């Protein structure tokens, strides 16, 4: 009888890449107008690139001003018929879209990860299921609109122009389209130039769902396309999610025109850890708050405010936990942090991190092996940050957390509110009364208690101050797509 020697066995997870052979992506995508894919009026195709490998995935048509005008005309023509359908009939189409998203979930998740660089774990478990959930939620509202705005007669706005960012491409498209369609509007969606592919798959889903032609148009393109869209005659509303700078430009462009507007812009959200928090779970929440989607989250908990009495412990535990993050191939099912979305974004992150070092904050970056090709940034923590530093003020939109300390509840509230932004905040305390007191004093649209970055279609989302206005999600998310008749 032999006895095995008792040495420690090393154990690493073998690579577990999600398969891509099931994808049916085309080599080239046109503009989705009137229920069909079309060539742009002035042919222009740009590659959509995988940020983890810098390889092109597919060529995508970019819409010019003529295409925008055409899409608006088609949407205008389709709108009265769509609005005239009984709510329950509109709901059937929206339910169908939701179910088709579920049916094609794997394909959508892999495409989202290839196109945007986010870990498959997130596209599979968060982006795609939530996108379907938003369509399901608003499908249910389509025949109950008069209860969405209490005791008033309501009507759709008409044609809505919707511009979404690259951080949650399909999910943001769902946030925009689902309520717009439920309310009887027709929509023209412009996905971001670096991540158009899942929106184009959504166009295919609209075809499969036999959505009446012209109800949804999808016009990929860059900022120029977006600028043409918001300036196009014949639109009734603009809904934009993206940077504060572009939001300002849109608001200026709409000044003096009778066009409704909602903006969901940047943030520098405070994640506040009190000394009576469950520290281990708070550390998980900090990680989820800032490293989720490489920190490309408008409501990312990028300003960590820690009570001084527990700062040392929280920082030590956070740093240890950061060392266990698995950074790399976004398609690997065990990857926690994927690729930065684009070269331009990587540059922006690097610039702000340099500023943080120059201003005297202490930088720690995880010593992880990063792939040679593609755009990558190691998870990073800054300590000894002062409220005056740029990294405490400006949105980095990357895997970089700035740690500041506070002494009292009052100071925590004051510091959290000391920002031009007001999108979200996190509160970590075991005391319910304290959580309510702080939450009601915070000028932020979303306040999470003992969790962070949790989204639900029933909950309203939106900003204070320069983080924008208007709400998405839940019954509040209907209001921006309706006008009150009487």
């Amino acid at each position: 009888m032999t006895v095995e020697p008792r040495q420690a066995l090393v154990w690493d997870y073998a690579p577990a890449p999600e398969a891509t052979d099931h994808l049916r992506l085309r080599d080239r995508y046109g503009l989705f107008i009137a229920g069909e894919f079309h060539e742009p009026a002035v042919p222009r195709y740009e590659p959509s690139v995988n940020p983890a490998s810098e390889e092109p995935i597919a060529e995508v048509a970019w819409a010019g001003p003529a295409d925008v005008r055409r899409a608006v005309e088609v949407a205008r023509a389709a709108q009265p018929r769509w609005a005239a359908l009984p709510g329950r009939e509109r709901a059937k189409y929206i339910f169908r879209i939701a179910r088709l998203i579920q049916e094609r979930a794997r394909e959508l998740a892999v495409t989202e990860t290839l196109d945007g660089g986010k870990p498959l774990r997130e596209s599979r478990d968060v982006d795609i299921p939530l996108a379907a959930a938003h369509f399901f939620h608003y499908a249910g509202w389509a025949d109950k609109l008069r209860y969405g705005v209490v005791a008033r007669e309501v009507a759709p706005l008409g044609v809505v122009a919707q511009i979404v960012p690259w951080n949650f491409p399909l999910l943001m498209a769902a946030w925009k389209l689902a309520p717009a369609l439920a309310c009887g509007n027709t929509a023209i969606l412009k996905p971001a130039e670096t991540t158009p592919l899942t929106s184009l798959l959504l166009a295919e889903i609209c075809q499969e769902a036999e959505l009446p032609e012209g109800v949804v148009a999808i016009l990929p393109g860059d900022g120029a396309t977006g600028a043409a869209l918001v300036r196009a005659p014949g639109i009734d509303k603009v809904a934009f999610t993206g940077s504060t700078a572009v939001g300002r430009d849109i608001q200026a462009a709409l000044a003096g025109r009778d066009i409704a507007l909602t903006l969901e812009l940047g943030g520098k959200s405070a994640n506040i850890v009190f000394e009576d928090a469950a520290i281990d779970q708070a550390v998980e929440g900090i990680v989820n708050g800032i490293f989720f989607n490489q920190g490309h989250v408008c409501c990312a908990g990028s300003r960590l405010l820690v009570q001084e009495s527990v700062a040392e412990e929280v920082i030590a535990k956070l740093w240890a936990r950061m060392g266990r993050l698995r950074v790399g191939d976004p398609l690997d099912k065990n990857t926690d942090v994927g690729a930065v979305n684009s070269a331009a974004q990587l540059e922006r992150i690097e610039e702000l991190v340099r500023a943080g070092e120059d201003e005297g904050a202490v930088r720690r970056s995880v010593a992880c092996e990063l792939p040679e090709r593609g755009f990558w940034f190691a998870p990073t923590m800054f300590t000894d940050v002062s409220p005056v530093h740029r990294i405490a003020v400006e949105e980095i939109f990357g895997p970089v957390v700035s740690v500041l300390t506070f002494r009292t509840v009052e100071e925590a509230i004051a510091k959290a509110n000391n920002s031009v932004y007001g999108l979200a905040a996190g509160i970590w305390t075991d005391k319910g009364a304290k959580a309510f007191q702080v939450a009601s004093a915070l000028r932020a649209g979303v306040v999470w208690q003992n969790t962070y970055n949790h989204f639900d279609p029933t909950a309203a989302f939106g900003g204070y101050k320069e983080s924008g206005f208007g709400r998405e999600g839940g019954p509040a998310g209907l209001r921006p797509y309706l006008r009150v008749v009487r």
Partner: protein
Amino acid sequence: MSRRLAHVDRVGVAERAAQLGRRSIKTTAKQQGIRIAVSVMDLTTLEGSDTAGKVRQLCAKAVCPAPTLPEIPSVAAVCVYPSLVGVAREALAGTGVRTASVATGFPAGQVSLAAKLRDTGDAVQDGAQEVDMVISREAFLAGDDARVMHEIEAVREACGEAHLKVIIETAELGSYEHVRHASMLAMEAGADFIKTSTGKAAAGATPEVCLVMLEAIRDYTERSGRIVGFKAAGGVSNTKAALHRLVLVKETLGDEWLTPARLRIGASSALNDLLMQYAKTQTGRYARGEDFSLE
């Protein structure tokens, strides 16, 4: 003195534990994970119907779980009631597989301290190299931390050279905060291992209690410099559950805990599922139950 509990958030624990359950363990990682799971197993029989014959057969299985799969190591230990320690020790002599015994009025622990110490002494005298004791839940729930610790210290002394695993029976403690508190008491009182459950309560080593106890070990070891092991017992009945526990250990304490000196999984039925899953990684086909011996 009133008790001060460190805060543990139930929802956050459940989320993190579930997240680690979604790690993809495939191909070579699965094979190696199964080998580790077998190597840290305390193969256990704790029934009123246990006999010398049953224990001898179990010991043979412990030493060589699958003659057809030579790369599968022996398990770490065989765990029996005190009356059968002598049988197990003899059957395992010279094999490297250790003899473990439950003691201290297992599983309820509702006997006097004197009886607990005699129980422990008997087991050690008969050759137990490891003792799995239960804490007094009666004292713990009544808030008498001092008595809980005193009993552990006394049993620790009665163990002599034997390793002491302290079962805190998480299912009976009421909250994760109490699980963490009991873990800390056991470690402060000298436990070599802390162990989740007896396997006789309503719930066993759920991923959530494992996570809470592993975080307690991490914090205690960091603070004191003394290394404490972890044993998950109860409800770890198949390969998926065993690998999930290994992931929890790896990502909370690190790879250096994936050894029998620091980690145990108490199980009986899980062993054959591990063997069947291992065989599948080699042949591509699911094995039949009868391909492996019952014990």
